[in-house]
């Protein structure tokens, strides 16, 4: 965990409105766990005032230079352009300076080896699942159910396949893969592999539906949430989400940045999570 004052190695549009940014981050990957995130300062001058949170897509090493320099460690994020900050990011180039704080938060609990694992990604919610798939796929059968509104929202699936993950794509308009909701695919897979555990990230309505499916079938579920964040480190208490047992007269708030962003489904109060304003608007829009 540290503030990396670093530079961009590349920043490319990978699908309309979606970008992939690679950052130089020596020492980052040793500590980064699947499901963690970073807080990015998109430019030195203000505004925007606050940093923006992004899931860590993956980390890696550039091959060593001919001149004998050690291999360079990098971190990749995938992001969707939704507002002021991400618009500025889309204009950045190789060599531009940025600052990232991380890795932050609690990632996924990888669970027992051998168990079947189903990963459910909705649009940009795919991001934290890649490193999870990397660490799961060595020890378990992993299936990725990837959903989006249309083909543009389906990202990086071939990279999951390269890890040996079985992938199933669905889109609302049928422009890629099966036509329909990713949750319909999930129901079918759970019919077939009822003892799987599920890991999900995506828009809140999707997570809500996934929760209801898993809850009904008593399948263990971990979700990665989004929230508006100011600090990302547990200091401001701006990013809280209602924990299980929350009530007006007995409020129980959990910090998304510090106690999350990944939660076991049982930790959360699902009663109104689906309609929580301000959550995951980036994904919804």
């Amino acid at each position, binding site marked *: *965990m540290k*503030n990396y004052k670093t530079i961009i190695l590349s920043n490319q549009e990978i699908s309309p409105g979606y970008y992939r940014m690679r950052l130089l981050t020596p020492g980052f990957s040793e500590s980064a766990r699947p499901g963690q995130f970073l807080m990015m300062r998109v430019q030195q001058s203000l505004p925007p005032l606050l940093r923006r949170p992004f899931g860590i897509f993956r980390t890696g090493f550039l091959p060593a230079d001919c001149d004998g320099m050690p291999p360079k460690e990098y971190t990749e994020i995938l992001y969707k352009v939704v507002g002021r900050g991400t618009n500025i990011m889309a204009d950045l180039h190789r060599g531009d300076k940025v600052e990232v704080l991380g890795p932050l938060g609690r990632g996924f609990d990888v669970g027992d080896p051998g168990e079947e694992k189903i990963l459910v990604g909705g649009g940009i919610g795919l991001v934290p699942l890649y490193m999870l798939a990397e660490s799961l796929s060595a020890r378990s059968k992993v299936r990725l159910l990837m959903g989006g509104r249309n083909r543009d929202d389906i990202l990086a699936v071939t990279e999951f396949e390269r890890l040996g993950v079985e992938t199933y794509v669905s889109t609302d308009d049928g422009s890629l893969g099966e036509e329909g909701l990713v949750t319909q695919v999930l129901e079918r897979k759970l019919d077939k592999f009822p003892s799987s555990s599920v890991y999900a990230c995506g828009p809140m309505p999707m997570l809500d539906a996934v929760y209801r499916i898993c809850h009904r079938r008593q399948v263990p579920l971990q979700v990665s949430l989004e929230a508006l*964040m100011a600090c990302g480190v547990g200091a*401001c208490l*701006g990013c809280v989400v209602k924990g299980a047992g929350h009530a007006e007269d007995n409020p129980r708030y959990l910090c998304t940045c510090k106690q999350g962003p990944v939660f076991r489904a049982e930790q959360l109060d699902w009663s109104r999570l689906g309609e929580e304003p301000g959550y995951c608007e980036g994904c919804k829009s």
Partner: protein
Amino acid sequence: MAVDIGGLTLKNPVMPASGTFGYGEEYAPFLDINRIGAVVTKGLSLKPKAGNPTPRIAETISGMLNAIGLQNVGVEDFIKFKLPFLRELTTPVIVNFFGNTLEEYGEVAARLSEIPEVAAVELNISCPNVKKGGIVFGTDPKAAHEAVSVVRRNLSKPLMVKLTPNVTDITVIARAVEEAGADSISCINTITGMAVDIKTRRPRLANRTGGLSGPAIRPVALRMVHQVVQAVKIPVIGVGGIVRPMDAIEFLIVGARAVQVGTANFVDPASMITIIEGIEQFLIEEGLKDIHQLIGSLEL
């Protein structure tokens, strides 16, 4: 760089603003906390407090709104879970606190007096996000006087009192607070503001309104610090929109004995270090041997 802020000497005049630095430990990975003048904790109350529903924050132009609602672990859990980390620090710990009633103010003050690791307390009579109590104490000179008096009677430590900017004349409150026994005054807390999402037509904060902080409010904070410095004899600690060293220097020039850095911690966790170094550099450039040559050196 050492300054006295009313019975407590700091090695430098830079500390965090309450509520933006957690209980210290959250930022430990990002800066050497012992280099800052003091740690100021998130506001504590007698009992744990859950805070407001979400969304609690919204970014605005050069600022942010927050309506955290003073969520905190309460005094006892603070002692149990947060103090162990703070105890290991060599820099002094200032505990920010508030109460919902006069009695509560007194009780928390008494309890904090017993803790040797607490170097001083900062009394928040100014948070706009608590419906009960809070706002009344900070905006009415009599209520402010009363609250400070109760705390004073129950407290055996230096007492800093934090003022709200949401008043017609801050000097009236400042004088009331001084008279009631405050050792120093910190100002300002956030300015009450609001933002609306034009698509959903809902307030961006569940609490409707929240406190505006960040660079946007700096000119207002500076004006109020200037006014308070002239109205009272006790030291004044400047807070509001400080991001860069030059911002802190502005406050010192108008007479702030020290400064607090709030929202800037979110932007850059090392801001306080940068600010400390920047002030040191400025003293050298300007040929000033002592920070007191800078403090209150405003030319009129």
